């Protein structure tokens, strides 16, 4: 008995290396430039700190020199020396601390460069001796890259205040994959922590950060400090802390009179026009109005005139302002540290989906309001035995045909774009532009309009026949029985009487196969 051969569709023949080597190393330097930019910006800031420290020390040394020279008595000299020792020790301590920081940052840059340098030999190995192993090792490099993108994404997105830093998935993943040196986790977590605080209406961490980075903020003329202080002021007024509000106004807001005059004027008016004062107005005039309605001010605006008067002030009290403040902060923070504005993982997913999306992909549009499938649902559906390949389920007999067919059909690699998890992303993205058909060697058509590769259809039929033989099912009366007989007459050059359609599970006579010409 000859054993039928049916190979998987995917190309496992390695006579020629695939074009994975296309994205060359220079491109990867470009794509990863931000992973050098972030530590470099920190090195630059650290250098500025060192520079200031050393310049101050230089001045001090000059002063010490002068006083040593002009010292008259040994006692005086001794006391000068003592304070010089103290000053030097402090300098030594501070400088050592900054040097340590620099060493850590350098070690990140080195680790990244080392990781990058691994790519070239892997590509060369794959090109000179293409095999499953060299391919997999090359792909491993890209797997690492993907994991890095995931970690970075998770560190940016992890805003759940209930999860401690150590428990965050991004950090955990980074540690277990030993990628500490490849990710600027400290920079990213600080950003997401402050953003989270802002969104919860806590400005303390933001104000600390602003104080530390005042020089930079002034240099780029950022709105951030003004908006933060303004928000602080609004919050105090909202809570009826007029005295504190006035303090913030005088100490911080007033210095922005030149740049933000209009807002400062409005800010002053808020002392009078605020939810508290308007509330009292409301209870006087519209006491019967339902006070549970949020926000409270609509009740005041039955009268169009007062609506116009107050609305331009009342938006200051909206909680949305925290969202936009958080956005302002993030933009400034990312800019300062050289973090890309667009999350790299999202950029690659958007590009990758478009490159793979064909007109045959099924990815229905999802609405913002419709629920997104949970991870468990997706996994459950994936683990279910595939039953969609053969559409027959009417009778037991046909069912067994379907089972056999499904067991023989080699798994066709499933399309990532149409996958359960990604189709919701893919729906709004462009298609790949295809100029060449990608079909098979000898297309033949069956009467039902399905087109297959001739050799593979025959191979499939052989495998099916072997399968029913080994299963020893009683086939009497079943049409399988007829097709089991080989026929060596001239009308059947393949020895088969017919072929079975793997999609519909229906037999066709060999003479029904027609060669078609797609191009």
């Amino acid at each position, binding site marked *: 008995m000859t*054993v039928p*051969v049916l*190979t998987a569709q995917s*190309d*496992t023949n390695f006579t020629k290396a695939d074009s994975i080597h296309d994205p060359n190393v220079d491109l990867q330097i470009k*794509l990863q430039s931000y992973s050098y930019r972030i530590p470099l910006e920190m090195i630059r800031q650290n250098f500025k700190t060192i*520079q200031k420290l050393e310049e101050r020390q230089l001045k001090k040394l000059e002063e010490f*020199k002068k006083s*040593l020279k002009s010292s008259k008595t040994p006692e005086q000299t001794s006391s000068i*020396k*003592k304070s*010089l020792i103290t000053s030097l020790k402090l*300098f030594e301590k501070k*400088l050592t601390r900054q*040097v340590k920081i620099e060493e850590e940052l350098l070690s990140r840059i*080195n680790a990244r*460069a080392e990781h990058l340098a691994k790519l070239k030999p892997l590509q060369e190995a794959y090109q000179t001796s293409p095999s499953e192993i060299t391919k*997999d090792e090359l792909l491993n490099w890209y797997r690492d890259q993907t994991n890095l993108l*995931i970690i970075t994404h998770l560190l940016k997105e992890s805003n759940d205040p209930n999860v401690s830093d150590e428990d965050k998935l991004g950090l955990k993943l980074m540690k277990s994959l030993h990628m500490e040196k490849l990710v600027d986790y400290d920079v990213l977590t600080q950003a997401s922590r402050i953003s989270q605080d802002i969104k919860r209406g806590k400005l303390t961490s933001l104000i600390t950060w602003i104080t530390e980075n005042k020089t930079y903020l002034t240099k780029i003329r950022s709105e951030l400090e003004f908006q933060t202080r303004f928000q602080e002021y609004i919050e105090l007024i909202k809570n009826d802390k007029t005295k504190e509000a006035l303090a913030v106004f005088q100490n911080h807001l007033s210095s922005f009179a030149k740049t933000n005059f209009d807002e400062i004027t409005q800010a002053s008016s808020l002392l009078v026009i605020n939810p508290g004062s308007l509330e009292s107005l409301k209870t006087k005039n519209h006491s019967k109005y339902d006070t549970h309605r949020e926000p409270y001010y609509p009740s005041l605006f039955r009268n169009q005139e007062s609506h116009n008067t107050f609305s331009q002030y009342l938006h200051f009290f909206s909680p949305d302002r925290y969202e936009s403040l958080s956005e302002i902060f993030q933009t400034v923070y990312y800019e300062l540290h050289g973090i890309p504005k667009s999350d790299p993982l999202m*950029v690659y997913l958007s*590009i990758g989906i*478009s*490159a*793979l999306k064909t*007109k045959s992909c099924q990815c*229905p*549009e999802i609405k913002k309001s419709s629920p*997104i499938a949970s*991870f*468990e649902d997706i996994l459950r559906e994936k*683990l279910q035995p595939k039953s969609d390949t053969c559409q027959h389920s009417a009778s037991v007999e046909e069912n067994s045909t379907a*089972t056999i067919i499904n067991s023989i*059909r080699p*798994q066709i690699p499933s*399309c*990532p774009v149409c*996958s359960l*998890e990604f189709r919701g*992303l893919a*729906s*709004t*993205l*462009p*298609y*790949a*532009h*295809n100029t*060449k058909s990608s*079909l098979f060697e000898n297309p033949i*058509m069956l009467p039902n309009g*399905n087109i*297959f590769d001739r050799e593979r259809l025959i191979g499939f039929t052989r495998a099916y026949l072997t*399968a029913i033989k*080994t*299963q020893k099912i009683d086939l009497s009366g079943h049409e399988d029985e007829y097709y089991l007989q080989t026929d060596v007459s001239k009308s059947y050059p393949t020895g088969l009487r017919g072929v079975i359609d793997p999609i519909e599970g229906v037999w066709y006579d060999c003479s029904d196969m027609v*060669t*078609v*010409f*797609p*191009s």
Partner: protein
Amino acid sequence: MDNFITEVEKLNSLSYSKTLSSTRTLIDQLTLSEEPPDSNDNNTSSSTNNILKSIDSLSTNINKELKANHGKISKFNKCVMRNELDLSQYYRHPIPEWKNKIVLNAINLHLLRLGQLDDDMLDDHFSKVDFSEMKELQDQIVNKHELEKTIEWFYKNQNQSQNQNELSLTGVNSEVDSTNDLDFEFRLHRLNFLKLINAGTSSSSGANTDEDLTIQSMKYSQNWFPKLIEKNPTYLSQISKLMSGFILDVASGQESNQATATSQSVNYKEQSLDSNFKELSLLFSKKYCSNLGIEYESNLFQLTLTAFISFPNYIRFLEKLPPNTPTTLTLASSFETPFSIELPSFLSKFHPIFICPVSKEETTSDIAPSESGFHSVVPNPPICLPCYHIISKTSLHKISKNGLSSFKCPYCPTNCYAKDCKQVKFHFI
């Protein structure tokens, strides 16, 4: 690339060591001079002079190193700037923030394969999706060269799948299909045997252990190989090659300790065992995933890999455009990428693609494909003409004047009627 690495190396010479060491010298000097003068009474002035000198040298070192380090940093900064690329330029079809949960699902499916999923993500319902077992066995194979547990795993799971469906073993056989059970079984035992004889012939300590191992490998081969040959006779030639190499090697080892290696014995030794184990681990992982019903590569990885491979197309495209040209990175005429992208075969064989030879448009299935935002695509399936040439439905409508008149096939002299044309569908099997 090499240039970049050189720049990184140069940056590593950032140093404040001279500043620190001369600070230390000065401190030591000062501390010494402050100690109670024992014998040296009159070196106060010279000491002060020395101290003044040391202060000067510290100042010089501070200035020198500051200048040098500043230079190194700005040089590396220029190097990074030369290579800088603004990713957002290529992000013309952003993924809205409300879809982040979709991304998170995909991330979790990716992490599942790494055995890195958060513990509370899966309840007991999914206990069988345990990739930590896969990780452990991979480690056994690749790092410890131990196959016993994998063999155990194989027979345990093979029985399961056999109960479900006897065909997995006998139905389809191929030498190339890596998920094939029999082939995997053969490779497992072959490698285990290779490992045994390698240990037998390479260990130099004690003839007894050598012999034991030789006998052990013999027993192993007698135990397993006949069964495998029975299942698939084509293994016979491979096994006899393996055995002859083994016997010749043992013989040569007994005759003399010198390496009178025959070509045969070199044959199996030269095959690096290490790469054999790596290959097997890869096969095992794929098998493990297919047993679970999950693809070996996560969809997320396939998409990022595709993006890495297609990125040069985008860079070339934007470079050709005059600067500041607004572009959505799609063709003006259709909602498609502005260029075609060549991908390796393992990333491009998901769907059959048919380009209508008349309109040069890609055909769709008979159901409307995705409604892509404002860019809805009209269903345009392939149609087979009576002469068996295939064109798209829209082309057919055009040349047949909406099916009203007969027309000549664009590729042969056949005269066609719309009623004789048939909608078709391409399938990969």
